[in-house]
């Protein structure tokens, strides 16, 4: 079976979505780790950002990340349309089967994957505008002072609230996404899967919690600095 053919099947599609989703989760983890350097002060944070962006390989990495995003979104979109087509006439009354049998993993998170994902895609654009392509302040040693930018942005309550809402979406998306990806990739084990589910949700909470903390911390820091 040719590869392209494989990945156009319903299972192949979901495998690609799972792989790219897990890839994006790994990206989020590294992104969070970097962001947490904010806690270490302006020097460390700015130097980290500079080292990262001044490495020529960053363009390769960025291109790769963009490709992963693209595949994740494009495959999800085609998958979504195919799934819509699979049920042309909707139910008039529809209830979650979970209400009759708790075996189901259905949740608000799983039901709204497309919605949370779409909004997150838009968020990524504004996020890049705000930071990556935002005002460039020159800091010590002539490197970019991202620390200052972040202090400015998250000094504004509206931004904080906006980011917290966006992070809530990430939380929701990963809550189903991580566990779902393991199933798409065929990882199921009667003993291990219940633990994987818990681990996936703990990981989700850690990522989202970390990202929650940053705007709040920055906001409080900026207030106490005034």
């Amino acid at each position: 079976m040719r590869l392209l053919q494989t990945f156009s099947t319903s299972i192949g599609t979901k495998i690609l979505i799972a792989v790219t989703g897990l890839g994006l989760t790994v990206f989020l983890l590294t992104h969070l780790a970097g962001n947490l350097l904010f806690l270490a002060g302006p020097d460390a944070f700015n130097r980290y950002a500079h080292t990262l962006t001044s490495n020529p390989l960053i363009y390769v990495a960025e291109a790769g990340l963009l490709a992963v995003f693209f595949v994740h979104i494009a495959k999800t979109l085609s998958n979504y349309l195919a799934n819509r087509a699979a049920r042309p006439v909707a139910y008039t009354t529809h209830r979650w089967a979970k209400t009759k049998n708790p075996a189901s993993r259905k949740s608000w998170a799983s039901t709204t994957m497309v919605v949370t994902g779409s909004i997150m895609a838009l968020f990524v654009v504004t996020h890049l505008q705000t930071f990556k392509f935002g005002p460039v302040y020159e800091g010590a040693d002539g490197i970019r002072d991202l620390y200052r930018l972040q202090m400015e942005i998250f000094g504004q309550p509206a931004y904080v609230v906006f980011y917290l809402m966006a992070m809530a979406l990430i939380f929701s998306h990963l809550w189903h996404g991580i566990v779902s990806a393991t199933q798409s990739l065929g990882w199921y084990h009667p003993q291990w899967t219940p633990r994987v589910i818990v681990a996936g949700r703990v990981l989700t909470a850690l990522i989202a919690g970390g990202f929650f903390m940053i705007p709040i911390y920055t906001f409080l820091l900026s207030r106490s600095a005034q």
Partner: protein
Amino acid sequence: MAMTITLNVWRQAGPSAPGRFESYTSDKVHPDMSFLEMLDVVNDDLIRAGKDPIAFDSDCREGICGSCGLVIDGIPHGPDPGATTCQVHMRRFRNGDTITIEPWRAKAFPVIKDLVVDRTAFDRIIAAGGYVSMNVGGAPDGNSVPVPKELADLAMDNAQCIGCGACVAACKNAAAHLFTSAKITHLGVLPQGEPERYRRAAAMVEQMDAEGFGSCSNEGECEAVCPKQISIASIARMNRDFMRAATSK
């Protein structure tokens, strides 16, 4: 102690005809009736009144043939876990209840009339590879190949599938993954089915897609409505076998 029940039933004259809900009330419902016997009673009254009775499929009425299947108040096969529509009894409802009844809805299961749908897509998935390729006459002695009990039990857990299509009906994507994976698992874990395990998985998945079923969102609503409570572990296994098939050719 008869109950009064009002039904909101999907009526559709034919595959391409527009459908609509119609309402019927019966005061002859008894708590010991099965859901389908309740429909029999409503139908007999419709027939006596010279009206077209509600068409629905049913046969064995003991939960094994897989013919019956109604979405009852938004849930395939109604409120009882591990049961088919024919096994739901009216004692599950209260006097005065209004019940909405819809057919399975999926592109691959076109409505034939009212609540009767065409599930022959499932037969075509089986025809694509859901068997062991062996001819009558060539079998070795039944005990010549030992099968570990755990595997035989796992095969049986999956072989129990009755092909009712509730998994498709419950899935938000109208996916047939649970049905297809149950057969792939049943045959794939047995030594008799092992030689063509990956070829089978690839062929059945291909047919499943061609029929117009959706993909799996890993929510497990199918498992929750499955009258035989087949686990979505089988779907994971199908995904594995499918990947193996894709990478080995």
